[in-house]
């Protein structure tokens, strides 16, 4: 092909090519605008931390990715406790949750919801343990749907009125809920029979919240990520041998950097206001 011919062709082709590029750019522009609006909408829906998931639910972030919103878990629930969120529920649309005060999880031994999940958003291995024969066996007591939290100021047992509704109703009585005898300072001669929740056993089923006698429940289930703190690695219960294991793997030297610690401690003591 000659050089002149080539340049002629180029001139002819330019408008076509330009048209094509413009249309691609225009498409990309529209896609970006649409995508941004779309993301904004989704972020608003995702930011609902107080949702209680069925037993066996994998961590919330993965759960939202894996759940296909089919509702088979809700259909499998014999107590109709699971709700499939509809737009306007302020929860991620189409995902299953329960409202403990209204219909708590009844902790079925065969965990039909988790077993029915076709996608692995509810992972039955999280609610299974190794049985005597070596195979995996379902155990609903292993589920971690949330953690019950007591408001001691409105709980009437902490006032000194006898109530053990939550304690009696708890499927893991004496493990997840215990009653502590506390001296009643007001009368000086009675005990408060005060309920206490233990996070290592509480499954977050919400039956305590369901049965609580106060107007608005004084014991209520929150997602564990919301309800629990996290201890620092270097605070050790020195009186517990097992707890000391936590520092074994940590490096000996450690440094915590805060705006204050950037300067020499002596400088800070001598020159800075504190």
């Amino acid at each position, binding site marked *: 092909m000659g050089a002149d011919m080539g340049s002629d062709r180029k001139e002819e082709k330019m408008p076509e090519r330009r048209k094509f590029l413009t249309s691609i750019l225009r498409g990309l522009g529209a896609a970006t605008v649409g995508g941004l609006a779309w993301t904004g909408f989704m972020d608003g829906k995702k930011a609902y931390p107080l949702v209680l998931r069925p037993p066996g639910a994998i961590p919330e972030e993965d759960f939202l990715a894996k759940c296909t919103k089919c509702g088979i878990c809700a*259909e499998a629930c014999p107590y109709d406790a699971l709700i499939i969120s509809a737009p306007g*529920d302020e929860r991620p649309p*189409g995902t299953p949750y329960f409202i403990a005060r209204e219909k708590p999880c009844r902790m079925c031994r065969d965990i039909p919801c988790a077993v029915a999940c076709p996608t692995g958003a509810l992972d039955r291995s999280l609610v299974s343990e190794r049985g005597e024969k070596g195979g995996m066996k379902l155990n609903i007591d292993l589920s971690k749907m949330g953690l019950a939290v007591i408001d001691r100021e409105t709980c009437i047992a902490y006032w000194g009125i006898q109530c053990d509704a939550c304690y009696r109703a708890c499927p893991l009585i004496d493990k997840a809920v215990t009653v502590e005898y506390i001296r009643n300072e007001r009368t000086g001669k009675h005990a408060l029979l005060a309920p206490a929740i233990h996070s290592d056993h509480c499954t977050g089923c919400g039956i305590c919240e369901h049965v609580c006698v106060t107007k608005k429940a004084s014991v209520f289930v929150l997602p564990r990520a919301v309800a629990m703190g996290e201890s620092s690695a270097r605070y050790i219960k020195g009186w517990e041998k097992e707890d000391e294991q936590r520092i074994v793997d940590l490096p000996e030297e450690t440094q915590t950097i805060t705006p204050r610690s950037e300067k020499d401690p002596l400088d800070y003591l001598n020159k800075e206001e504190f």
Partner: protein
Amino acid sequence: MGMIRKHRYLISRRTSQISIMLLFIAGNVLGWKVLAGNLSTSKVLGAVHLADPFAVIQIFATGNSVSSEALVGALIIILFFGVFAGRAFCSWVCPVNILTDMAGWLRKKIPGESGERTLLMSRNVRYWVIGISLVLSLFTGVAAFEWISPISMLHRGIIFGMGMGWTAVLAVFLFDLLMVRNGFCGHVCPLGGFYSLIGRFSLLRVRHDREKCTLCMRCIETCPERQVLPMVGKQTALVSSGECSNCARCIEVCDDKAMEFVGKFFSAKKQDEKEGILS
């Protein structure tokens, strides 16, 4: 009898769409095992899982995997529509289609609304939306289209409770009624786009017979995806575009029997076709 015959495919499609939804409702309300779940993921007869392949692909785009049940379920769907039925999901299963067909029918009754579009929009928008869905799934970590899909809102709403989902459904209806003819299903919906892509090579096809055609053009007028019928009146050929949803409206509307369903490769008239093209 003539009326029924004239609308035999419409009646079949509505029967198919409505009975699938009724079976899902019965699965939730009565505990029937025929169809449990919804169109996103379902369990058939208590045994086989089916899954929306586009949803599964979005989940993969988030960097997650799905269980083997869901993966197999998605493959069954891809095989059924990809090998056999083409884009038939849209006109034989999807409940939104009932709504948008209604909007399309009403649109014709609006005086002065004869034009193809009020708003100019490319039919390729749906493929862009597929792309955006996957990119957003990657960045947000959730299956992006599943969060805003009016299809999900409608079928899940019918089965499990609608909530505010009706607003999205109404928006789709009004979009089709007032803004773009066949706007949602024919331009925007990425699920339709997805089935267009996988339905391109399916066996079930509409065949146009040039010999019988009297050029009344009613097939093109009625077709919700007009661009798939370039051969009408020109040559005998199969509708080859994956964007044809096998809704069979062109077959019903044709009084000359110039349109019919055939199986690609199995058509006895294959030889004729070649001759038709040559002549």
